[in-house]
C-alpha cells in the first residue's frame, strides 16, 4: 500500500514499545540499585544471556510444548465449533447441553491435570494436549454459538423474502456473522492452550518439555534459567496469538478491528 498506513502502523506501535522498554529498563535499574537477590528476581540482562546460552535446551523444549499446545488448541477449538454448530442448529440439543456446558465452564479445569496424567501416560504429550483441548473447548463453543445466534432478524427475514432455505441462511448470514465471535474466542483459546500445556507439564511430563524444565530449574534454584524458560513460553504464546490475529485480519476484513488497520 501507500506510505501513510505504514507510518500509522509505526506510530501505533511506538507507545507500547516505549512503555515496554521503560519497564524493562526500570526492572534492570532497580534490581541493580537495590541489590535484589538473584533467586527473587533476576536482572533482564541475566535472563537474556541465559536465554541465549541455553538456547539448545530451551528452544527444543519450547517447541515440544508448543506442539502440545497447538494440538490441544486445534482439537479443543475444532470440537467447540462443531458443538456450537450442533447446538445452534438443533434447539433441543441446546436446551439439553447448554446448562451442562455453562456449569462445566465454572469448573477449574486445570485441577484435573493430575487426573489427565493418569488417564494418559504423563510422559506422552497426549495428556497435555487433552488439558489444553478441554481449556479451549468452552470459550470457543460458547462464543461461536453466540455468534451463530447473533444474525440480525431483518437480515434473516430479507433472506426469507428471497426464498432462501435454512441452509442458505446458515451459510450466507449466520456463519459470516459468527466469524468475528469465533476469532475473539480463538484468541482466548490460543493463550489458554499454552497455559494448559505448561501447567500440565508441572505435574509431570517428558524431560525435554518446557514446563518440566522450568519446574526443575526452579527447584534447583536456577531461577535465571526458569525465567528464561518463561520468556520462551511467552514468545511462543505471543506467536500463536499473533497467528490467530493475522488469520482474523485476512478472513474478517469487514470487522471494526480490520477497519482500524
Amino acid at each position, binding site marked *: 500500500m501507500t506510505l501513510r498506513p505504514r507510518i500509522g502502523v509505526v506510530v501505533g506501535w511506538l507507545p507500547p514499545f516505549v512503555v515496554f522498554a521503560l519497564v524493562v529498563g526500570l526492572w534492570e535499574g532497580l534490581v541493580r540499585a537495590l541489590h535484589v537477590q538473584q533467586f527473587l528476581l533476576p536482572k533482564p540482562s541475566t535472563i537474556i544471556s541465559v536465554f541465549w546460552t541455553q538456547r539448545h535446551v530451551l528452544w527444543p523444549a519450547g517447541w515440544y510444548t508448543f506442539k502440545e499446545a497447538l494440538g490441544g488448541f486445534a482439537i479443543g477449538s475444532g470440537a467447540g465449533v462443531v458443538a456450537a454448530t450442533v447446538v445452534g442448529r438443533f434447539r433441543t440439543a441446546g436446551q439439553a447441553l447448554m446448562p451442562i456446558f455453562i456449569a462445566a465452564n465454572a469448573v477449574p479445569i486445570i485441577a484435573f491435570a493430575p487426573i489427565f496424567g493418569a488417564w494418559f501416560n504423563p510422559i506422552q504429550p497426549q495428556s497435555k494436549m487433552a488439558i489444553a483441548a478441554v481449556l479451549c473447548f468452552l470459550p470457543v463453543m460458547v462464543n461461536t454459538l453466540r455468534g451463530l445466534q447473533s444474525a*440480525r432478524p*431483518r*437480515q434473516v*427475514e*430479507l*433472506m*426469507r*423474502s*428471497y*426464498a*432462501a432455505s435454512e441452509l*442458505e441462511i446458515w451459510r*450466507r*448470514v449466520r456463519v*459470516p456473522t459468527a*466469524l468475528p465471535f469465533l476469532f475473539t474466542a480463538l484468541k482466548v483459546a490460543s493463550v489458554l492452550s499454552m497455559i494448559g500445556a505448561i501447567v500440565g507439564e508441572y505435574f509431570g511430563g517428558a524431560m525435554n518439555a518446557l514446563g518440566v524444565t522450568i519446574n526443575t530449574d526452579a527447584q534447583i534454584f536456577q531461577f535465571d534459567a526458569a525465567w528464561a524458560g518463561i520468556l520462551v513460553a511467552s514468545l511462543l504464546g505471543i506467536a500463536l496469538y499473533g497467528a490467530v490475529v493475522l488469520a482474523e485480519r485476512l478472513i*474478517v476484513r*469487514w*470487522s471494526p478491528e480490520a*477497519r482500524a488497520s
Partner: protein
Amino acid sequence: MSEVTATPAVVRVEGVTKTFPRGYVTALENIELEIAPREFVSLIGPSGCGKSTLLRVIGDLIEPTAGTVRVNGKSARQARRDGDYGIVFQEAVLYDWRSIAKNIALPLEMLGWSRQRRRERVAEMLDLVELTSFADHHPWQLSGGMQQRVAIARALSFEPSLLLMDEPFGALDEMTRERLNLELLSIWEQTGNSVVFVTHSISEAVFLSSRVVVMSPRPGRIAGVVEIDLPHPRTVDTREASRFFELVTEVRELLRMRGEHLLPEEEAVLE
C-alpha cells in the same frame, strides 16, 4: 365469483385478519385492498394500526389468521418463491461482510443468475442509484442515505413486480429523505413496478403515491383511501402546489377523525 377484470390486480387482499398469539392485539381486522399494476400505494397510520403487519402479510413474512392474499394471481407464498417481492426496510439491512456490489448481487445469486449477468445488472443498478464508485466499498463506509440507496438498488435488481417498502426513509434526515423521495419516484417511473410504501409522514405519502390508504388502530382497519391526483412527473415544486396541501389536509383529517395523532417518532411495535 370469477369475473374477468380488465387489469388483473398485482395484489388482492381479501378479508385479512391477523391476531397475535399474545392475545390482546388484533393487528388487522378484515382488510380489503387491491393494488393495480404500476400503482404506488402508501399505508399510513399511527402506531399499532397494523400497517407494517399488512406489508408483511402481503410479503408472506407473516401468515394471516384469516383471509387470503393473492399476488399476481398466485398465493403470497408462491409469489415469494418466484421472487416477486423486492423488500426495503427502515434500516438498510446490508450484509456487512459483502461489498456494495455483492450486496446488490445477493438476490441474483439466490435466483441462480450467471456471474456475467449478475455483473451487468449490478453495474446497471449502481448507475441507477448513482453509487458506481462505491461498488467495492463495504457498507460501514457509506452514509445512512447511501446505504438505503443500496437497499433500494438491491430490491430492484431482480425486477420484482412488487416493491414492499417499510418506512424506508424513516431513519434519515428531512433533506436526504426528500432527495430520496424524488429518486425513488424517478426509479419507479423507469421500472414500472407496483409499490406498497409504509410511512409515518403525511407529506411523504401524498408526494409519492397514487393512492394513500389511511389506517386506524386497535383493531387495525382501513379508515379511508385518498386518491392522489397530482400530475406526474412530480418535482420539488409539487410540494408547494395548493393541490398538494389540500390532499395533505384530507389525509390529516382522516387520521384525526379516528382521534389519533401522528407522531414522527412513533413506531409500529407489533412485530
